[in-house]
């Protein structure tokens, strides 16, 4: 039962009477920085942040992917093991540089829509989070690649500050929100996952740079588990519960799955952490065996739903999301194989499948929907006649870029063999994939600017 206080705090003022939509938009944005009632909240498009806020995250993120590709070109044997400095640097260029930046930008955009929670003081908070997270990703990846303690500590500190700033702002927004549906709850669980992943990461940084005595391998496994499933997986699932049925016109996910999946992930991660850190040998091995079935369950349910789409001729984004789900399922199986097979290929393959095939694929497909829609939305809000989405982002370059993404995946798996030639090919493909993604998104932003310019605004 929701408290009366929460609902009252949520509802009092949506807007000022007698204003048009544009004036209303300015009012909402102005109010965010002014001394206004904590309950003021909007259900409008205008409550969403200015376009440049999410766009700056979305355009910066692929640069980290390009950096990862170039690094792999220079260090083509980096993926021979999950423990090489190069593999650790590559992992964090993708997870922190690409994934975390996009997720921050997207959450600032969608929290008002799906959870009724506006991030307060959005412009300074966004600028701060962006600056801290970007510089933190660069420092951390450099520190891991070069084995420089000072860079590692700088990276850990900057990223910790970015996560704290974002979580603090999101917590204020969510605290004021009365939305209680499953998606809002799962977003909160994902934010807990982010906090734990970050905290474990900082402990690992201290262990590597200052010799803090901790069980390094167990902690690294927990850090990866919380990042993959507690943060990334729950966020992807919370998004999918809403996005897949609505935008692909499919039946809803089974109610038992949406109700229990994320809390179960959280409970299993907590149990695994308690057993692992408690020194139980069996406990450290049990995590993947409990988590992999959960990942498989989510991937299988999504694939099953997608087969029942009412939309005709699935587009490249749809195919990419299917590939992402298959990759997550295959990655979960590789993670299980890695628990009993000694060969170093399995953990690297699990990482490549989950991170590149799963998250990078799903995020790319979603960015290709989000960015042109936001461009269209902001033009419409400015009372400018907006070209439709396919004119803001043409199909052909998007389709080819996503095809390149699909080709890059087996190349990365081949690079996990540790052969230099395979690493060079994969590096080249990764560089091209992210460079092309950036070019396509920047093209949409430039079309938006041009249309705005032509309208004299």
């Amino acid at each position: 039962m929701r408290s009366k206080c929460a609902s009252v705090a949520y509802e009092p003022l949506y807007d000022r009477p007698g204003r048009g939509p544009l004036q209303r938009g300015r009012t909402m944005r102005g109010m965010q920085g002014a001394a206004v009632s904590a309950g003021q909240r909007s259900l409008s498009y205008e409550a969403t942040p200015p376009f440049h806020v999410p766009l700056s995250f979305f355009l910066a993120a692929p640069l980290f992917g390009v950096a990862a590709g170039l690094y792999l070109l220079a260090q083509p044997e980096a993926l021979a093991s999950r423990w090489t400095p190069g593999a650790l640097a590559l992992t964090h260029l993708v997870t922190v540089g690409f994934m975390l930046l996009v997720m921050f930008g997207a959450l600032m955009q969608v929290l008002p829509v799906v959870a009724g929670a506006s991030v307060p003081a959005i412009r300074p908070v966004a600028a701060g989070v962006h600056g801290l997270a970007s510089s933190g990703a660069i420092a951390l990846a450099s520190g891991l690649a070069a084995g420089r303690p000072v860079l590692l500590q700088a990276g850990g500190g900057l990223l910790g500050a970015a996560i704290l700033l974002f979580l603090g702002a999101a917590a204020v927004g969510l605290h004021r929100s009365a939305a209680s549906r499953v998606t809002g709850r799962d977003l909160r669980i994902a934010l807990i996952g982010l906090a734990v992943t970050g905290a474990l990461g900082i402990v690992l940084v201290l262990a590597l740079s200052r010799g803090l005595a901790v069980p390094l391998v167990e902690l690294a496994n927990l850090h990866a588990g919380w990042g993959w499933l507690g943060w990334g997986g729950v966020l992807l699932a919370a998004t999918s519960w809403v996005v897949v049925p609505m935008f692909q016109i499919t039946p809803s996910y089974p109610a038992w799955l949406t109700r229990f999946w994320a809390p179960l992930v959280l409970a299993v991660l907590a149990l695994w952490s308690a057993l692992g850190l408690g020194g139980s040998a069996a406990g450290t091995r049990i995590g993947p065996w409990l988590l992999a079935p959960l990942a498989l369950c989510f991937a299988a349910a999504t694939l099953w739903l997608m087969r029942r789409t009412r939309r005709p001729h699935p587009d490249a984004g749809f195919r990419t999301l299917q590939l992402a789900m298959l990759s997550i399922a295959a990655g979960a199986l590789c993670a299980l194989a890695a628990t009993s097979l000694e060969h170093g290929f399995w953990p690297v393959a699990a990482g490549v499948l989950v991170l590149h095939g799963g998250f990078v694929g799903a995020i790319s497909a979603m960015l290709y929907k989000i960015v042109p829609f936001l461009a269209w939305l902001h033009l419409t809000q400015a009372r400018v006649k907006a070209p439709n989405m396919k004119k803001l982002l043409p199909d052909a370059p998007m389709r080819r870029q996503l095809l390149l993404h699909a080709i890059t995946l087996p190349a990365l798996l081949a690079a996990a063999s540790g052969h230099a030639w395979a690493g060079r090919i994969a590096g080249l493909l990764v560089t091209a994939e992210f460079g092309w993604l950036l070019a396509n998104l920047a093209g949409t932003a430039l079309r938006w600017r041009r249309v705005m310019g032509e309208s004299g605004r």
Partner: protein
Amino acid sequence: MSTLTELMTHDHRQCDEAFASAERHARRGEWEVAHAALGMFARALNTHFGAEEAILFPRFEQATGMTHGPTMVMREEHRELRAALARLQQAIAERDMDEYAGEAETLLIMLQQHNMKEENILYPMCDRHLQAQREDLALAIGHELAGAAGAELPQ
């Protein structure tokens, strides 16, 4: 239906079905059938908007005193969605596949973002504030929505 949220969410999904039917036939170049299916989508959408604007929103405004709140924003979005629907109907009348695909994609995302706000935020608020009159309200809205249903969608 036990809540207004469930009733209105169910109708959103019915509208989606009609939209998907029109899109399927347009993609196959079956323009006549697509035109008919889009007509059904337009009727379903306008009936849904009408039920909200004439029945649900006024009751909500009366119960909460919020006449310039979320309902005003939703009415504004209805206006934008009707304009997007008119562009889609224009594209189908001109049998322009590229234009139809682009406008359909735009309308779908705009519509679903609108639905998300209603389903996650506004309808639960309606359920809370209109609890005492929920049964009567659901009956009246259901009667209104049933007016647009009935005809079989082209498969």
